[in-house]
């Protein structure tokens, strides 16, 4: 559905995107993951035709965004980072304006009712946009992308600035939309992208770092053989005990505080590994107060992905 080839964008000497290529199949929900400034918004702006690339091509449903912009843009609904709303209009007036702007052909009333129902804004249709809360504005922004029923939806950080309840609602809305549309969304929250997307495209410093299915990426990233152990006692004693356990391959002290020490432990894949640690520590009267799977932060992920490359 969307093919991006060798996309490069330079702002003067500053390279915002460096030879990024990927494609998104019809019906897929793809997530751009990356820290701020990674090039997520720039990529989206180029796909939607708001910016142009320095080099490289973008085609949407076979139409090049530069050669046939009208055809390509007709197929895209775009929610930028800041929802493009006119505060002086009511929700209804706004949707009507977008309908005319996109030259949509659906039956007006039925189409609006459907969109408002789906995005949960039926109750506020008569209100001025400037009087709406942030959550509702975001939904009106999403509703706007659905006008004209474009096959591709591009959502730039759709959950930023929302409260936890709204975030859950918006996520489930996006999953619902993903059944009928091809969706690209961006986020800097790993768990969010994992929860919503089939595909994860990781960007860092304008470079494509990883492009894989949600599952395979998380397998690569959450290393089941790495755990964190925290126990009460002297660090040296704990380390000695951990090293004596057969299934422990490597252990490394992370911190020591208030009479307890934390270790990062690499274990063999034997199922009994954790139990072995527990019994060994118990025998030496060094109580374990915490043992958990090591979770990687976004920074760790980037480091590991960049290292692997």
């Amino acid at each position: 559905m969307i093919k991006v080839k060798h996309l490069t964008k330079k702002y003067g000497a500053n390279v915002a995107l460096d030879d990024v290529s990927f494609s998104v199949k019809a019906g897929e929900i793809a997530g751009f993951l990356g820290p701020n400034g990674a090039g997520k918004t720039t990529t989206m702006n180029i796909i939607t035709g708001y910016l142009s690339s320095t080099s490289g091509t973008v085609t949407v449903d076979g139409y090049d965004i530069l050669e046939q912009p009208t055809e390509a843009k007709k197929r895209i609904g775009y929610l930028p980072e800041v929802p493009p709303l006119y505060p002086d209009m009511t929700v209804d007036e706004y949707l009507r304006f977008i309908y005319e702007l996109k030259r949509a052909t659906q039956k007006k009333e039925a189409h609006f009712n459907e969109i408002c129902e789906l995005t949960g804004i039926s109750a506020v249709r008569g209100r001025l946009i400037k009087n709406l809360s942030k959550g509702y504005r975001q939904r009106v922004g999403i509703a706007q992308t659905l006008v004209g029923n474009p096959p591709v939806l591009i959502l730039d950080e759709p959950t930023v600035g929302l409260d936890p309840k709204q975030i859950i609602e918006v996520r489930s809305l996006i999953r619902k939309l993903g059944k009928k549309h091809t969706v690209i969304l961006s986020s800097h929250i790993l768990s969010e992208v994992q929860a919503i997307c089939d595909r994860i495209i990781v960007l860092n410093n304008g470079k494509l770092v990883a492009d894989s299915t949600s599952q395979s990426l998380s397998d690569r990233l959450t290393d089941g053989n790495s755990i964190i152990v925290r126990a009460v006692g002297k660090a040296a004693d704990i380390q000695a005990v951990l090293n004596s356990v057969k299934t422990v391959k490597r252990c490394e002290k992370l911190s020591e505080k208030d009479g307890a020490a934390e270790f990062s432990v690499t274990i063999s894949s034997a199922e009994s590994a954790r139990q072995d640690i527990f019994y060994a520590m118990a025998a030496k009267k060094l109580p374990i107060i915490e043992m958990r799977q090591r979770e990687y932060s976004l920074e760790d992920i980037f480091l590991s992905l960049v290292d692997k490359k």
Partner: protein
Amino acid sequence: MKAIYKRELSACFRSPIGYLFCAIYLFFSGMYFNSVLSVGQSSEFPQIYYGMLNIVLLMLPLLTMRLFSEERKYKTDQILLTSPLNITPLVLGKFFSALTIYAGCTLFTLIYAIVFSFFTSPSWPLITGNILGAILFGAAFIGIGMFISSMTESQFVAGMGSFSIATIFIILDVIPLITSNEFIVSLVGNISFVGRYKPFTKGILDMSSIVFFASIAASFIFLTVRVLEKRRWS
């Protein structure tokens, strides 16, 4: 283009700006009409339009300053520029919405002409010539104001920019009064908006003036399209 035109027109009257513009226009044109009535001669009627020119120059920034600056401030230009609409109809829609409000005010002066016709028979060709000239005059300056608005996201800067240019135009007309250098006088006479308007006051549809105003409007519409296009590539 229709969608943009409609939205702009209604947006203008959703804020006080549209009403303010009409009120100022009607107030000053009413004052001029009052003085025309006190003289009571048909040949004096174009004085309303001629007298309004400088006021119109200072007022039009009110209409043009928000055209593109506001879109950039609210980031709504993103929805306009990523919609299937081309940039030229987008710019034209905005241009004609501002021109419609101004032309509406100008056409309102027809009521003065009707009132006038109760007392004496007005010269209709003279009046139509003046209205046409006044609209062309406004169109040219709306083009300039819109162009300035497309370059900044601050309405205030856009307003002050067009306001300064209006002031320069007004000052231009004073130059011939303080110098006798023929070259300067003819140069100013050729580029002065008010000078170019003069044939219309006599009811003459002067082709060079019509082309002058229309080409200024067209070139600034073109430049505005370029500015928006350029932003995509920068």
